[in-house]
């Protein structure tokens, strides 16, 4: 019994035929294609592939290339070779770099150990046969539909020093000890993470609800007959049985935290306590002082980190098919 997620569940053998027969059928078919069919198939493949190569993979390659250059982004003839100097500058002399790395790690740990478990807890509670489950689900799910920009704007209204609801509830509003949650660099990372959690937990909840539905009920029954408590059943039986979806969730959580950008950009453009690698990339690319080489070096660092979960996920997903 695998997860309900097609992403991990559906294999080529889903059509219930042996690989050998499949291959044979495939070969026979290809040889039977008319030349017109081949042209049609060729076009069906060529257009999407060209778009993907030109607008996703070529820029990725160019980013790597540009990271070894000095360029102000004007004429192409101004590009100068810079060797590894951009990287060495980033690592040794670029003040926001290490704070950004630290914030990215905190972001990942917070989503991984707080937001994701909250989503899992909500899913487990809602997976029981309780009244009003649909209503609860809708409530927790609503933030998932909002863009992270809007999440930032809405929490701005919650966190505002003088007008926000949080300081009113704490009784500090208008007093000297009122906290400017998004403005104070000691707390704004945590405030932003709470806002991000508001959205992330609902997303994880929905995925786990689908995953829990896919767990074979007889597993639970067997555990219950053996006298396992609800908690034991969950951690020893149900959770391990959801291994495929757990992996998907780990990958999503890592990729989401590396991609985090919108919310810090909306708060203060990723400065003053909210530096993230993704925001540093953009700060060096837009505006007057375009430093393409430096921005690209940062982008490549982000790329290299991202490739770890991406390759792990791809190997897991496609291994059986090759």
């Amino acid at each position, binding site marked *: 019994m695998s997860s309900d997620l097609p992403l991990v569940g559906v294999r080529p053998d889903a059509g219930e035929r042996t690989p050998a027969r499949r291959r044979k059928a495939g070969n026979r078919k290809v040889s039977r294609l008319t030349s017109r069919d081949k042209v049609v198939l060729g076009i069906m493949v060529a257009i999407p592939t060209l778009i993907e190569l030109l607008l996703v993979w070529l820029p990725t390659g160019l980013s790597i290339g540009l990271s070894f250059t000095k360029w102000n982004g004007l004429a192409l003839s101004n590009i100068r070779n810079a060797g590894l100097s951009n990287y060495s500058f980033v690592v040794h002399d670029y003040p926001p770099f290490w704070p950004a790395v630290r914030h990215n790690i905190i972001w990942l740990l917070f989503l991984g150990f707080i937001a994701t478990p909250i989503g899992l807890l909500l899913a487990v509670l809602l997976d029981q046969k309780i009244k009003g489950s649909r209503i609860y689900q809708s409530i927790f799910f609503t933030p998932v539909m909002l863009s992270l920009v809007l999440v930032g704007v809405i929490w701005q209204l919650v966190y505002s020093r003088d007008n926000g609801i949080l300081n009113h509830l704490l009784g500090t509003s208008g007093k000297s000890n009122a906290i400017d949650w998004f403005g104070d660099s000691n707390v704004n990372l945590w405030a932003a993470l709470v806002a991000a959690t508001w959205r992330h937990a609902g997303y994880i909840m929905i995925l786990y609800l689908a995953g829990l539905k896919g767990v074979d009920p007889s597993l639970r029954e067997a555990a219950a007959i053996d006298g396992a408590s609800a908690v034991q059943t969950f951690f020893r039986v149900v959770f391990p049985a959801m291994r495929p979806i757990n992996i998907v969730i780990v990958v999503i959580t890592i990729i989401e935290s590396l*991609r985090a950008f919108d919310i810090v950009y909306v708060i203060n453009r990723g400065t003053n306590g909210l530096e993230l690698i993704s925001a540093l990339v953009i700060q060096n690319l837009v505006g007057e002082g375009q430093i393409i080489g430096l921005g690209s070096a940062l982008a490549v660092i982000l790329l290299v980190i991202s490739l770890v979960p991406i390759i792990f996920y791809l190997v897991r997903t496609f291994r059986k098919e090759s």
Partner: protein
Amino acid sequence: MSTSLTSPENISHPLPTETERVGSTVGRRHYGTHLFLIVMSIVWLVPLLWTVYTSLRPKEATDKYGYWSLHGPFGFSNFTKAWKQGGFSHLFMNSVYIAIPSVILTLALASMMAFAVSRFTWKFNLTLLVMFTAGNLLPPQVLAAPLFEMFKHTSLPYSVSDSGTLLNTYYSVILVDTAFQIGFCTFVLSNYMKALPMDLTEAAMVDGASVWVQYTRIILPLCRPAVAALGTLEVIWIYNDFFWPLLFITDGSRQPVTTGINNLQGQFLSNYSLLAAGATLTVIPTLVIYFALQRQFVAGLTLGASKG
């Protein structure tokens, strides 16, 4: 064996309904669970309710009593002001101009690609599928600089683009949104198509059906639930997309809502009621789509758990 993709009914019921599951918990009261969930629900709703409440109170009321007060009157004056000052009619139309072509292109191209890699066996099948899937998982910032420069150095006639390049046009965002989302949709649709029996198209083949006929008459109609789910999801994702328009469209009058609200935030910062009204206006289309197509949307999310 998972059946979620093989049976269309499953797609329209992605969440367990209350009658589906009969477990050992029948008859238990769950007071503690309810208490916990109610507290969590309140915490979850406060930011939204506060936004709506703030947006409904005219500036005079908040000036006099403060934002944290229950004094009326209530009305929609902030909405009309935000709508006019923020140029929401433009912003919404910009979102439509970007989202509709992007979603149609994405689904059309991804379904062709998925059809080719899932229904036919040839050399680079898996390589292409891996390339498409991986492309969607990259952080967008990695592609930002080269794409910006490529678009800046692509000349277009002034009749098509007033900047003379691809920058500051809807096309730039449509192109990149499409390229970025094709990977995800190809991955999901190819899984879906692989699960459809091979006999379907083999029989048609024997009857002399061309590849194009197999794709349009047999496979696509069977994929309707998946395409509907992906379409709903993509509309909301592309509507919510902030980064590409921010990067490519400098002209504020051409930005979509999600990017436009970022500018409004600066503009309305002294007037929280207007900001709240702007936020509420921005969220309304998403809510309408969600409530109209709730099942498709949630199905899409669980279909493609790989996307953030």
